[in-house]
């Protein structure tokens, strides 16, 4: 029993990483209706920017805020320059665009900061949290930030004018345009916000997985899985999905003999697929009603 609770705790700790990433994924999905495959690389790039600023002597929180602002602007710039012209292109062409963006960002980051692993500081320290060996203060901080972010997003979408406009633009673009919402800029705003949330995720993940251009590969896969498991239309679902994926992963690694590190991911994914087969639009997602 002790082993079980310990593994669940450890799962929640890793799950916080996935939850963070999944939140960014859901954010962009809300705005543009696709999964952005380059999300992880964009977050990685933001994290490198923060690292670079800290190397230049900027204190952590200043670098944090600056990175968020730069990422926000960068996300909007990418949308305006690369994906606005593709707005009328087929969906699959857009997905190819994400893959291209992935390749570009990864390669450029590798060229600027090379592929060696770098340490990244944590604002919360890494002492054991409340005497538990399984969760460090950093991981507890990460869970706190993720939940805080979730609440902020909820408030933003629920109670601000611009949040309402974004929701309207995503749900029924044509009607939204008729009531005077600039839907094109709402999409850009969605990109910016997703990019900033991704940056937060990157900054929180980097102390755990270390900083290097390929750091997001594994995390993004789990983040997608978490977002899909929770239902892509729900930020709450993304966070719950993230924790669930973390717990799944840990329990599979512990209790299934011979699973080890290699088979952890496939088995976790298989479990998610089984959940999806039972509940095709995710745990918290809305069933989309189609009209003929």
């Amino acid at each position, binding site marked *: 029993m002790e082993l079980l609770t310990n593994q669940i705790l450890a799962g929640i700790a890793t799950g916080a990483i996935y939850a963070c990433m999944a939140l960014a994924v859901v954010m962009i999905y*809300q705005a543009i209706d696709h*999964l952005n495959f380059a999300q992880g690389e964009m977050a990685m790039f933001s994290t490198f920017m923060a690292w670079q600023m800290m190397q230049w002597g900027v204190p952590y929180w200043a670098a944090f805020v600056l990175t968020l602002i730069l990422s926000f602007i960068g996300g909007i710039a990418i949308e305006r320059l*690369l994906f606005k*012209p*593709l707005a*009328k*292109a*087929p*969906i*699959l*062409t857009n*997905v*190819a*665009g994400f*893959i*291209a*963006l*992935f*390749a*570009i960002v*990864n*390669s*450029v980051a*590798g*060229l600027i900061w090379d592929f060696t692993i770098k340490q990244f500081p944590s604002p919360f320290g890494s002492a054991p949290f409340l005497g538990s060996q399984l969760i460090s203060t950093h991981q507890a901080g990460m869970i706190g930030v993720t939940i805080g972010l979730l609440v902020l997003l*909820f408030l933003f*979408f*629920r109670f601000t004018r611009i949040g309402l406009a974004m*929701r309207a633009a*995503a*749900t*029924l673009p044509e009607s939204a345009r008729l009531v005077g919402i600039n839907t094109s800029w709402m999409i850009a705003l969605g990109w910016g916000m997703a990019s900033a949330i991704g940056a937060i995720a990157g900054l929180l993940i980097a102390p755990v997985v270390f900083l290097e251009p390929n750091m997001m590969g594994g995390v993004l*896969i789990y983040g*997608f*899985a978490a977002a*899909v498991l929770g239902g*892509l*239309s*729900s*930020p*709450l679902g993304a966070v719950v999905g993230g924790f669930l994926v973390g717990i799944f992963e840990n329990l599979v690694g512990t209790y299934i003999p011979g699973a080890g590190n*290699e*088979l952890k*991911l*496939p088995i976790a*994914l*298989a479990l*998610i*697929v089984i959940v*999806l*087969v039972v509940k*095709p*639009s*995710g745990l918290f997602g*809305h069933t*989309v*009603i*189609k*009209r*003929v």
Partner: protein
Amino acid sequence: MSAIQETVTDAPAIDAVPKRAMTLGAGTSAVVLLLLLVMPLFVKNFVIFQLTTVLIYGLAVLALNILTGGSGQFSLGQSAFYALGAYISAVLMEHAGMNYALTLPISGIICFAFGFLFGLPALRLSGIYLALATFALAVAMPQFLKLGALEEWTGGVQGLVVTKPDAPFGLPLSQDTWLYYFTLAIAIAIYIASINLLRSRSGRAMMAIRDNEIAASAMGINVALYKTLAFGVSAGITGVAGGLGAIVVQFVAPDSYTIQLAIALFLGMVVGGVGWLPGSIVGAAFIVFVPNIAESISKGLSGAVFGVLLFVVIFLVPHGARQVALVCQHWIGKLKRS
């Protein structure tokens, strides 16, 4: 947080393709065929090998095109079917001593069955959710092939080395040239069969499902049957391509069939034009040659160069090679009239 309501009256995921636009005209087909036939006579063995690879990837892209362009289902798991086909061929050749040509139909049939069965749970999923499910398959396959229990057959992480076949009947062809023509023959046969499939009742049923599933089922189409059938056919063709790949590369190893292969095949489909079968070969050429070109332009930035080239292509022709073909057709039509 159920703040965001969804009322979707969305259009189908993929624009409908007029039926005639699925293929090339007779004249164009003949020219392309002639080019493919004479090309190996003028180039070096290594280039012939690359051209064979293009044909093989072309088959795999074609298979994905049938699934996505034909029936509207998205798959990131094609690399798993490709791996399965490759391994079946390799194991049959090396452990059972079977003739290489005979292993291909077996690969195809087993992959068809596997794809058909995988199509059953996939029935409940669509769009992104289906992408994730197939993605899981692609991630699981290399790990599965590495399993200790199967090592006796698969060779574990090391993989298997396959002997390269000679030209039969004492034909005066190098091994590479022979394999090229062998692959070409199979590719043409499968291409014609696929076109006939999409023109048949079954093909029309698949396209009806792609355009609107509910309307299709209202017209009496057995949606479950045709969706799984599309998965099966696609997996079968990918399996044959995988078998050919194993024979031509002479080597199978789990890490050659990662998710990157599935992504490459997807890019090939987009560049060739979704739902346009002749585009498959163009897309395959893109994924075989462009990474090499990118590498030769800049070693350190090859990924960025590849990405930029990909962006250039999708900016200029968002509908892929099909768009180029349509424009050409338009101009030729004008010239004829004047």
